[in-house]
């Protein structure tokens, strides 16, 4: 019964949503906004032209680079800021000022610096994801339970050993949470960046479909693909939370 409702309820919601969508488009008499079936047709058209896969790969490529670099920079930086007080005092105010600036606001700057190629969106994705990763890694170290630190010191562990064997594993669950949030943001930002700075990718698909002939079936097709891929990315990154070394950090569920 439990299993049945876990499958049935979301399916029912989806079916109702699609029926309402379809009816509203028909009722409004709009010839621009597509019905669900027209969107499916749009997706098929994109697939057959070979654009769908090409654009998905282009977007994922940018996200992989920008997000990957953000992890490589953000995690060590956050650990250092969380552990060394002077580093925190020196850098935290700057980070807190840069952090609330929307990555969208950086688009003109990115184009100025990097021109119209892959570097600009990668830079924007990096910027958007490096702050949540840094801040969550920093907080993870600062909020680490003192008892683990004391126990480690009691056993004579210090220096790099202390980092590797205690501080990093103690902070890891919260770091992974930050990484997960950052990946969601990265996926949001790649679409925005591709609307302006490049000529490929799912964001470009949407803006191009609108500009070149008001093909709203393709616009919504792009949106649906973005949503589905975002879901898959989150499901994938969630697998990190299942490792035995970090499971303890996520409560009893």
């Amino acid at each position, binding site marked *: 019964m439990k299993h049945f409702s876990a499958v049935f309820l979301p399916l029912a919601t989806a079916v109702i949503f699609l029926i309402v969508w379809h009816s509203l488009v028909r009722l409004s008499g709009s010839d621009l906004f597509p019905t669900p079936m027209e969107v499916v047709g749009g997706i098929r058209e994109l697939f057959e032209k070979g654009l769908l896969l090409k654009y998905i790969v282009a977007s994922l490529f940018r996200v992989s680079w920008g997000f990957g670099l953000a992890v490589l920079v953000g995690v060590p930086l956050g650990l250092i800021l969380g552990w060394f007080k002077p580093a925190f005092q020196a850098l935290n105010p700057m980070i807190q000022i840069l952090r609330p600036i929307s990555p969208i606001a950086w688009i003109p700057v990115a184009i100025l610096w990097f021109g119209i190629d892959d570097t600009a969106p990668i830079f924007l994705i990096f910027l958007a994801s490096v702050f949540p990763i840094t801040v969550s890694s920093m907080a993870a170290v600062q909020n680490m339970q003192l*008892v683990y630190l*004391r*126990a480690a010191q009691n*056993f*004579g562990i210090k220096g790099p050993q202390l980092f590797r064997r205690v501080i990093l594993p103690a902070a890891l669950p919260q770091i992974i949470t930050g990484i997960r949030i950052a990946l969601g943001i990265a996926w949001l930002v790649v679409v925005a960046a591709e609307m302006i700075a490049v000529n490929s990718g799912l964001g470009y698909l949407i803006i191009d479909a609108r500009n070149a002939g008001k093909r709203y079936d393709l616009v919504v097709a792009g949106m649906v693909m973005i949503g589905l891929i975002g879901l898959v990315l989150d499901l994938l990154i969630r697998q990190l939370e299942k490792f035995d070394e970090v499971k*303890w*950090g996520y409560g009893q569920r």
Partner: protein
Amino acid sequence: MDKDKSLIHVRDCWKSFPGKKAGEQVHVLERVNLDVQAGEFVCVVGPSGCGKSTLLNIIGGFFKESQGEVKVAGEPVNGPDPRRIFVFQENGVFPWLTIEENIGFGLMSRPAKEREERVTHYIGMVGLTGFEKSYPRELSGGMRQRVEIARALAANADVLYMDEPFGALDFITRLKMRADLIRIWQAEKKTVLFVTHDIEEAVQLADRVVVMSKRPATVAEEVRIDLPRPRDLDSPGYLAARDRIFAIMGMDVHGGGMGDLK
């Protein structure tokens, strides 16, 4: 008792913390004197918040005394030391390591074979054989506390500092843990300095109970418990020792009410 040769030696120890107002000092410990001999099991009891845990943290090297002399094995305490392991109330077992990795944590510099032998030995001693590959979250509170004790023993610590280690456990588990601790202590000939607010626990465990006063705390009195182990909790000797400590702490157990806590 030869106080000059005691393993843990605390003389005229004071500890103050900065208070809420600027320049204000809160005195937690005042003129504390304490001696523990090698191999002795000493319990420190006192009212909640009296500073007994602060004293243990000073001896363990996590806090520095404000004034006075704190020596262990003849040397002033300057930070924690792997020969003397602290067992924490809130449980310092690392949740990201398996039980065997936790118990072997203090043995990283030893050869793999020796490490393995010691881990196996102490897992058996604390009754956790079969849980080697488990993670702490899969264990009960009492089992996790045993892991922490085994981790200290495996590292071959001479002294265990225990800060209300059974405080978070249920009654039956606490009773069992006390019996286990005594068995291990007798087998291993370690020195144990054990802080608790539970007078009955102290009388069940200790060779000697150090009773502390309210804050600013000092040692009010020491009570030697010369009773054979395992202790009969209904024996006249046990009850007399218990009531004596209750009386020192200002509580009349037979009157039912609380006496003058001063």
